């Protein structure tokens, strides 16, 4: 019988609201979870495998390794929040669930980055869009990076396994108006669109995925793989920042962590030392390279932290006569890949079209201008429709990605210059989006840019956007997809990790997150991480146990 009193230092509360809370129930059932903000002494722990990060890569790894009989310990910088906390309010969600209150930025502050920082990582706050890695991306990896085992056929069973595990499904409800206007406008112009698959189970179609799912319908790591690993005896440390791997010879000897206070900003002074046979870095494509840089990980080719990709996003806002109510309903259900396929992958920059959910705080910070101009935009809030273009970086010398370095305090800083090649893609994307919005019946359209007016016809927009000076800071550029920086490649001259996710030069360290990708994906990356990491973690489990890995199934 487990001694329940000793398994967690988090006060167990009854679920708040009408929806059962599986996290509170798990804590009550004896999950081993330590909130390091509450530690009043230093801590030393040992496990078979220590995993840094509890997002897409860490969550999938934790479940497969724990089900395979290994003692797993997960370190998470964010706090453990659950449906009892998820109130569908931006002012609460952004500080609690995102890196830097959802205001993480590149070095020159030109690009705003949305990344999760909570148990479940970005999967707790993403918009549920589920795409397998596009075939053309995998073909490019095979040809350019020697990743022979990353063919659509060889990965298909792993994508299939994770789609089953996370209930990735065709979304049965009709798209909301925000999405449907993309579909209708594109159809008028003969641009094909398709429907987005979603990892949800019993979704209420509310539209608040970005603030943490209040009904536990989203099959994020928070409610799937992490609970499964914890039920199998894994340990979770929250509000613990992985500071550095201590390297001895060709091995990681231990991981040094610091406990963060309840605000998540300052160390409390308590230190945590973690020892294991094997270590997995899965903190995401900014924090994983930064951890490895702080650790002095071997990097003979100078590749670590380089080629960091963002799918830089430019934005077009239209105003419609009818209500669009972009806050209501599944946030992303329609997309178009037409402009990813109408030129070679290594030709002029391609872009994927999607829409974002519209909520007051996010829209208010996104829309340009102030005073009367801004107030006039916000007064149209229910009538606004917004399209995003995700620019596919990493396939051309003009879009080589950015680089992660460390500031004086050891915190990561991402430098991401935007070349004329990328601006060319951005301009074509802004033109495309405006044309689609006018075709869908928009009264006016404006690219989100400090100097762009609200154009009232396609002809006007076409001339205006063609002449718009596209520069960072004046043009709103954002990202929710950080990839690369610890690239895997068949050849050591091209990547710090091998095709098996093992970090070159360190015998007991693997990288299991989006930082492995040698280019961007060209699609929302969550399912790429799930499927690829499922294979990496299964092979690792087999190597560590000498037995075939367990297969996770949805319960």
């Amino acid at each position, binding site marked *: 019988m487990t001694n329940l009193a000793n398994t967690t230092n988090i006060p167990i509360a009854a679920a708040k609201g009408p929806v059962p809370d599986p996290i509170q129930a798990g804590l009550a059932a004896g999950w081993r979870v330590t909130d390091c903000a509450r530690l009043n002494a230093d801590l030393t722990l040992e496990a078979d495998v220590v995993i840094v990060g509890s997002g897409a890569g860490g969550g999938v790894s934790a479940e497969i390794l724990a089900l395979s009989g290994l003692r797993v310990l997960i370190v998470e910088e964010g706090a453990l929040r659950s449906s*009892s906390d998820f109130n*569908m309010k931006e002012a609460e969600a*952004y500080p609690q669930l995102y890196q830097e209150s959802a*205001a993480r930025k590149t070095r020159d502050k030109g690009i705003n980055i949305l990344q999760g920082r909570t148990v479940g990582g970005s999967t707790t706050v993403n918009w549920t869009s589920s795409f397998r890695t596009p075939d053309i991306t995998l073909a490019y990896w095979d040809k350019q990076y020697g990743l022979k085992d990353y063919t659509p056929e060889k990965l298909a069973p792993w994508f299939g396994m994770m789609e089953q595990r996370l209930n990735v499904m065709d979304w049965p409800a009709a798209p909301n108006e925000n999405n449907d206007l993309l579909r209708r406008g594109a159809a008028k112009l003969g641009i094909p669109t398709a429907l987005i698959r979603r990892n949800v189970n019993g979704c209420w179609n509310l539209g608040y995925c970005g603030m943490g799912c209040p009904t536990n319908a989203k099959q994020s790591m928070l409610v799937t793989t992490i609970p499964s690993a914890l039920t199998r005896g894994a340990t979770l440390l929250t509000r613990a920042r992985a500071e550095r791997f201590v390297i001895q010879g060709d091995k990681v000897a231990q991981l040094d962590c610091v406990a963060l206070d309840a605000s998540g900003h300052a160390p409390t002074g308590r230190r945590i030392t973690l020892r294991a046979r094997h270590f997995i870095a899965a903190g995401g494509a900014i924090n994983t390279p930064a951890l490895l840089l702080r650790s002095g990980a071997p990097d003979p080719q100078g590749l670590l932290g380089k080629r960091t990709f963002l799918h830089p996003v430019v934005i077009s806002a239209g105003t419609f006569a009818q209500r669009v109510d972009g806050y209501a309903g599944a946030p992303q259900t329609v997309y178009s890949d037409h402009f990813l396929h109408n030129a070679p992958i290594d030709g002029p920059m391609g872009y994927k079209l999607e829409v974002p959910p519209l909520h007051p705080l996010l829209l208010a910070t996104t829309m340009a201008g*102030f005073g009367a101009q801004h*107030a006039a935009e916000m007064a149209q*809030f229910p009538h606004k429709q917004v399209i995003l273009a995700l620019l596919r970086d990493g396939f051309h010398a003009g879009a080589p990605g950015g680089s992660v370095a460390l500031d004086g*305090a050891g915190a990561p800083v991402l430098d991401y210059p935007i070349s004329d090649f990328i601006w060319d893609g951005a301009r074509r994307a802004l033109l495309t989006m405006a044309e689609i919005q006018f075709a869908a019946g928009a009264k006016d359209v404006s690219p989100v840019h400090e100097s762009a007016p609200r154009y009232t016809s396609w002809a006007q927009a076409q001339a205006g956007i063609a002449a718009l000076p596209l520069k960072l800071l004046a043009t709103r550029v954002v990202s929710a997809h950080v990839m690369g920086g610890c690239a895997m490649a068949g050849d050591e001259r091209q990547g710090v990790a091998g095709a098996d996710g093992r970090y070159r030069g360190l015998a007991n360290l693997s990288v299991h997150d989006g930082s492995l990708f040698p280019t961007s994906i060209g699609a929302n990356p969550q399912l790429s991480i799930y499927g690829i990491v499922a294979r990496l973690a299964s092979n690792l489990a087999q190597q560590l146990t000498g037995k075939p890995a367990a297969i996770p199934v949805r319960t």
Partner: protein
Amino acid sequence: MTTRRSFLKIGAAGALLLAAGGAAYRLTHPPAAPQAFVLDGEAGAVLAAILPAMLGPVLPADAAARQAALDGVTSRVLGAIHGLPLGTQKEVQDLFGLLALAPARRLLAGVSGSWREAAPEQVAAFLENWRHHRLGMLQTAYLALHDLILGSWYAEPSTWAGIGYPGPLKELQK
């Protein structure tokens, strides 16, 4: 209202002043482990002057309601700043510290008298100038103020009726 004034066009001298202003500010605020943001003295006057210009017509006309709205958004801006990493809080502190220095206020922001006496049009002209400024540092300062203030305004449920947003499902509120 938004015509650029010659004194707002910063040349090399202005850039030097910017550096000198930062140095002067740092002299009086020696480096230490990053601390949480504090809205002290003149910084409070800076924010109080910028808020009405950034928010414009969304502020209520009635004096008491207007003051209550300004008090509310001030406290939300502080809360938003406190949600940022300490290093970023320090940058915001430096921005307010710089704006509070009289030479920077005059030459960088173009506000001649004190912030307490600044006319709304004068503050709006300053914001418009920084918004389009060729110095990236001033553009980022404008954008930080834009995001902190306008984000904090619309974070508040009482502002939602004004933009036709019904708010999240009441049944699921805790």
